[in-house]
């Protein structure tokens, strides 16, 4: 137990170190993109103004507000101390909205779309994978090539095909957005209905692509497990196959938990392309637009959120594995 605590302490120390480095890089890297975002905003605001003096004054005000006139290390100190107060600064591109506000409103969409999609595809993929390995014959002969085909299509390609088929040809689902563009979010039935309709295409395109990859991996693992000696021994003990398949499922699914946690952790980045294809109002679209607008604070905010997600997910994997898998429990103890 003592060495287990030691193991966890050193793990946590590594996670904190990684996080510190990540904060630094998240701050620095967007600011290395060449170009001047402030002048873009200023030229937008001052369009129609003729007086160069007042344009210059506006420019300076903005530079001061964003702290861009200070040396970069001082900017970093301010950034960090603001972070401690939960302040990620003001967006350039969506001025004067706070970065935290933008992130908070868009992450709801992203999580609402991704979390169910990832979990559904993970569960369906694993169940189909183990069944394909166990049933073999016709089931496997049809599903295996289908899985293989789906998993080879890039997700944006798949999303575009979905839009074309269901929105353009069949016209049974809206093509883009999180709700009808002429609506204002409100707790009404018609709004929720619109959200639900807009949800289907992005949701199923993530789910289907996910099932493809997930079930292939699970099928491989299950075939391996089904050939293990314990399966034969259990059969000779007279255990029914449904019980044995449960053992196989548990053992084969353990390594897949890493995949699940990683895709949960990389939810935001993973959704980027799907969200862009469907113009879904989530973090992916926000990050995409922020990069286009050189919106440093917003880019840093998005990437910091993504990094934190990945780190937390990995940390949870480490803990969960130790709890579920006795082999790792023992290894950690030693």
């Amino acid at each position, binding site marked *: 137990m003592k060495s287990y605590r030691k193991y966890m302490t050193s793990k946590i120390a590594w996670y904190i170190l990684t996080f510190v480095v990540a904060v630094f890089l998240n701050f620095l890297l967007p600011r290395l993109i060449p170009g001047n975002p402030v002048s873009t905003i200023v030229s937008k605001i001052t369009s129609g103004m003729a007086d160069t003096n007042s344009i210059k004054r506006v420019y300076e005000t903005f530079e001061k507000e964003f702290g861009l006139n200070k040396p970069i290390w001082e900017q970093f100190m301010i950034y960090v101390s603001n972070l401690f107060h939960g302040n990620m600064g003001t967006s350039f591109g969506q001025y004067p909205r706070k970065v935290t506000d933008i992130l908070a409103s868009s992450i709801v969409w992203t999580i609402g779309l991704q979390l169910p999609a990832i979990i559904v595809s993970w569960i369906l993929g694993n169940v189909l994978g183990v069944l394909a390995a166990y049933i073999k014959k016709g089931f496997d002969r049809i599903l295996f090539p289908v899985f293989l085909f789906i998993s080879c299509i890039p997700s944006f390609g798949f999303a575009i095909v979905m839009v074309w088929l269901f929105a353009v040809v069949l016209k049974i689902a809206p093509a883009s957005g999180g709700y009808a563009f002429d609506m204002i979010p409100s707790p009404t039935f018609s709004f929720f209905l619109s959200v639900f309709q807009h949800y289907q295409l992005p949701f199923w395109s993530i789910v289907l692509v996910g099932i493809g990859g997930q079930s292939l991996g699970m099928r491989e693992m299950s075939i391996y497990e089904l050939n*293990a*000696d314990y399966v034969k021994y259990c*059969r000779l003990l*007279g255990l029914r196959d449904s019980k044995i398949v449960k*053992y196989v499922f*548990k*053992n084969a699914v*353990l390594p897949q938990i890493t995949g699940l946690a990683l895709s949960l952790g990389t939810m935001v980045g993973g959704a980027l392309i799907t969200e862009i294809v469907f113009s879904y109002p989530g973090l992916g679209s926000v990050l995409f637009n922020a990069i286009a607008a050189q919106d440093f604070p917003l880019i840093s905010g998005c990437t910091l959120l993504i990094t934190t997600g990945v780190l937390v997910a990995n940390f949870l994997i480490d803990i969960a594995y130790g709890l579920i898998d*006795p082999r790792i429990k*023992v290894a950690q103890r030693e």
Partner: protein
Amino acid sequence: MAEILLQVKNLKSVYKTRFNERIIAVDDVSFDLESGKCLGIAGESGSGKSTLAMSIMGYYHPPLFYESGAVYISGVDITKLPYNQLREKILGKEIAYIPQAAMNALNPTQKIINLVADVMKEHVKGISFNDVKKIAEERFETLNLPKDVLQRYPIELSGGMKQRTVIAISTILNPKILIADEPTSALDVTSQKIVIKLLKNLIKRGFIKAMVFITHELPLLYNIADDIMVMYAGEIVESGKAEEVIFDPIHPYSNGLMNSIIVPEKGIKGKKLIVIPGAPPNLKYKLEGCRFSDRCLYAKDECKTSKVNMKYVNNSRSYRCISQVDELKEMYKDGKKPATT
């Protein structure tokens, strides 16, 4: 006469490979197993011992297929039973198995007690987990196994302990027949002795009624078997009482197996030797004549062509060779010992 628990009649099993080869790994095997007895089966690796074990238990999964013959367990021909009935009524309950590689026979992510519970619940309707625990703890104690093993995962047990645990699990329902396939092969000498003692204990206490003990070391059977069958290339080549087969083998192959332990070579005294040069024939080809003829030091011309049937010396002793017993004994006495390698 004692009750016959297991009767195998002209059993034939075949591996059908992807290349359309038919490997007859168990060929026309017949024997009876009486209550209270331990039958030893010996033969080199690849002679079909494990396949025979699977066939007796009706474990036919591709590429292994049933070809012909019968296996009577408690009067029922299990080769004719649908799999579900075999599983419900026979496996684990009437006949149980200890695998060759008990090291990997346990599901790594399952506590021992949970496997015991699954096995018992499968065969005893409505039994509660508490009852399972009570029965298992009692059984483990009786068999001199620490009962906290039940709360452990397989990885936490040593090789010998794992093997003993597997034996205890396999026999928890007091099956009439136990098939042990090389239960000691992977163990060190000390653990081997403990395991053999445990197996004998099972019969003595009546937890099992009879046993089939499979090994590639014929002399090992002296410690445990009442009767011995020697297997070669899918066939039984000799069968008889344990002392007779070990100390007075008739078949040149049995004789070779015994010599392979007894005769030390100069320089490496006491070391085990491969005294029978060559390897068993490839079973995918149709074999004519005696299957051992390529390696037999006493082979005659007709050995390669005519089919060799079992000959009975008395009703417990038989062998598969065209030569007469006296003829063979004479040759063994002549010192025409098989050459050592």
